[in-house]
């Protein structure tokens, strides 16, 4: 999934180093790789096609001709164009000129509307607002209970009615209540619907007519495939969308659907949602999503996720160390539990440039099991701090001592040390922006 675009571009463009010039034919080959990356990320094939045509035009120009590292240059152009297309800047929410701001949350079944509505409420609340949630999904069993529970968790009131009420009336009544009680905003959660369902699409149109929302946010699952464009376009036709919330971004989905929707409807991505816990919705960074769609990895996101569990100071130090490649086994151990807390190591690896492919490797996955991680930890724990800082101190007798102390074989210790050396090498490359193919990294944690 995270096949490295730059690696492939490198290969595609290798022939021209030394020639100093990129011919159209070279760009053709590079663009084939870009196309594949986009399609693997679920970007709609037509969007991918026109995007590539645009990039091609720029790439054949002088920018590339004068470049020293053609692959990087091409990636840069691709990345910039993609960022541009995703809408360079973050767009805020519209506000009602007077009275409560009405926000309608709509989308397909299971896309994450209810959780996103609660996350949005929390975001508004943290910014000093007094939102009201409205439970207008009376279709899915227990959807009302779900929203009520979430409302309770974040201490935001929820307007709800019986399952027999019509969704448009619930929305309308919620709006009246919000006016009366002077809420700053009302967020209407709606039932999931498929754009082919005429009856439900009419319903959502009526709801729009009746409540005149300031914001109509379309909730799109980051994992959506090629149909994303048709779905969003149809919704957009019924109730003009004002923004997109891209959900389930904590997984390994590349989120190409967002690009397709943006390109086809012009509706900007406004927020990203990660995780099931009700935490404020995150603002959207086009450049990061561009990296992710291209499978270029995203060190920024990686570091940010790390910050959730590691305090900022430690994280900065860690980042600095990775940059300088002075990350030693002491650091490794210190971060061990915290890294474990971040959840999936293999998904974290997916975000580090060049490590995505590695994380996919079955050997690596095996190595990342709890058992193997535990063994690695035991080996490092059996070393002295000095040994951890300078692994080259570890000779035969030290090795035997460490193995005995950790209940492993000297060869296991050796393996770990070799792999750590490889990892340091990778980090060095990483900080210099070049990624090699490193075999045998798989056993790093085993």
């Amino acid at each position, binding site marked *: 999934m995270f096949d490295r675009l730059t690696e492939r571009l490198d290969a595609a463009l290798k022939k021209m180093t030394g020639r100093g010039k990129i011919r159209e034919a070279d760009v053709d080959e590079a663009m084939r790789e870009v196309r594949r990356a986009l399609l693997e990320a*679920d970007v709609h094939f037509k969007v991918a096609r026109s995007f590539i045509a645009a990039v091609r035009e720029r790439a054949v120009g002088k920018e590339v001709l004068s470049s020293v590292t053609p692959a990087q240059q091409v990636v840069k152009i691709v990345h910039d164009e993609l960022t541009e297309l995703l809408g360079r800047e973050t767009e805020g929410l519209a506000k009602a000129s007077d009275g409560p701001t009405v926000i309608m949350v709509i989308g*397909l079944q299971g896309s*994450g509307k209810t959780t996103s509505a609660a996350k949005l409420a929390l975001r508004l609340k943290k910014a000093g607002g007094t939102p009201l949630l409205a439970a207008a999904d009376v279709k899915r069993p227990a959807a009302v209970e779900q929203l009520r529970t979430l409302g309770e968790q974040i201490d935001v009131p929820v307007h709800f009615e019986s399952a027999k009420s019509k969704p448009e009336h619930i929305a309308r009544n919620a709006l009246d209540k919000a006016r009366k009680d002077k809420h700053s905003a009302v967020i209407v959660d709606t039932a999931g619907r498929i754009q082919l369902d005429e009856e439900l699409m009419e319903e959502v149109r009526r709801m729009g007519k009746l409540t005149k929302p300031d914001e109509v946010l379309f909730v799109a699952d980051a*994992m959506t495939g090629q149909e994303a464009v048709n779905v969003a376009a149809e919704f957009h036709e019924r109730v003009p969308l004002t923004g997109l919330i891209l959900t389930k971004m904590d997984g390994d989905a590349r989120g*190409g659907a967002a690009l397709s929707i943006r390109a086809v409807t012009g509706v900007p991505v406004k927020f990203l949602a990660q995780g*099931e816990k009700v935490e404020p919705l995150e603002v959207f960074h086009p450049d990061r999503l561009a990296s992710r769609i291209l499978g270029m990895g995203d060190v920024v996101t990686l570091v940010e996720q790390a910050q959730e569990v590691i305090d900022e100071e430690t994280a900065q130090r860690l980042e600095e160390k990775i940059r300088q490649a002075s990350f030693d086994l002491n650091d490794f151990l210190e971060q061990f539990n915290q890294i474990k807390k971040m959840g999936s190591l293999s*998904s974290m690896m997916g975000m580090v440039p060049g490590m995505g492919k590695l994380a996919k490797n079955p050997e690596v996955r095996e190595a990342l099991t709890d058992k193997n991680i535990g063994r690695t930890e035991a080996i490092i724990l059996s070393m002295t701090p000095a040994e951890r800082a300078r692994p080259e101190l570890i000779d035969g007798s030290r090795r035997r001592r460490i193995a005995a102390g950790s209940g492993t074989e000297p060869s296991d210790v050796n393996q770990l040390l070799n792999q750590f050396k490889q990892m340091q090498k990778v980090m060095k490359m990483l900080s210099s922006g070049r990624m090699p193919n490193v075999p045998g990294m798989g056993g790093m944690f085993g």
Partner: protein
Amino acid sequence: MLNRLKNRFRGKSVEEGTEKSRRGFGSRIAAVFTRSSIGDDDWEELEDLLITGDVGPEFALDIVTRLRQQVKDEGIKTPDAMLAAMQTLLIEALDAGSGELAGGHGPTIVLVVGVNGSGKTTSIAKLAHSLKRAGLTSLLAAADTFRAGAIDQLKIWGDRLDQRVVAHQPGADPAAVVFDALGAATAAGVDYLIIDTAGRLQTNRNLMAELEKVVRVLNRADAGAPHEVLLVLDGLTGQNALSQARLFGEAVGVTGIILAKLDSSSKGGVVFPITEELAVPIKFVGTGESIDDLAVFDPTEFVEALLRRDE
């Protein structure tokens, strides 16, 4: 078991249920074959068409390359013959062994897993309903103790279907729910125990470990259990479904797939690379939100419906 189920299924067929989503797709593909001469551009167009069905760029290229070769080797000339050859290739890709639902274990334990919102709980309700219509009894376990309202959701379905639901409090240990449900199912002598689990992203190690624990609990009670681990995929999902199938498979050994939401406009083509790579059979498809909207999956029927031309 499958045939028995199939015969007594009163739900829609795959074809009826997915009629809308198929519209246009088959005709566009057929149109490529009817051209007087088929060149590079046409083959590429065929590839693109397949990609719009979410089969992924790799599978699309692979299948078109094979088809091209076959057309050349066998001197296939007529559009109909080309279409037939492609149909065969696609059906073969979906051949992943028996699609029958396990049965006869007294109780047969079915664990239902998948990412958030894919359609697990609804599919369970539909499955229990189908089994009931086939004269088989089931008990449902509400092992999604995490998502707000999830227990209520399953209970509401249980009430509607008149099926017993074993549940604990929100936040309880899913493994404990499963353990209790297993006891209750055995005592009641039901044919099936169907376990609803919380949606989780396949990359979340902690939550995947929780699922592994549920499997261990079942395993300890009955070495053969769970007899089925059904992964529910959202039919609208693109290439990430591959990652889901791989990682859920590695963690808990998926034995079959339910492809939900095929009443959408999506073609669900990602099942091709999945079955080809992992050889896990698709067992059912979901075609709507009511209890009758579950159909037994049949590769030939699925591909034929996919390629059917509009009238």
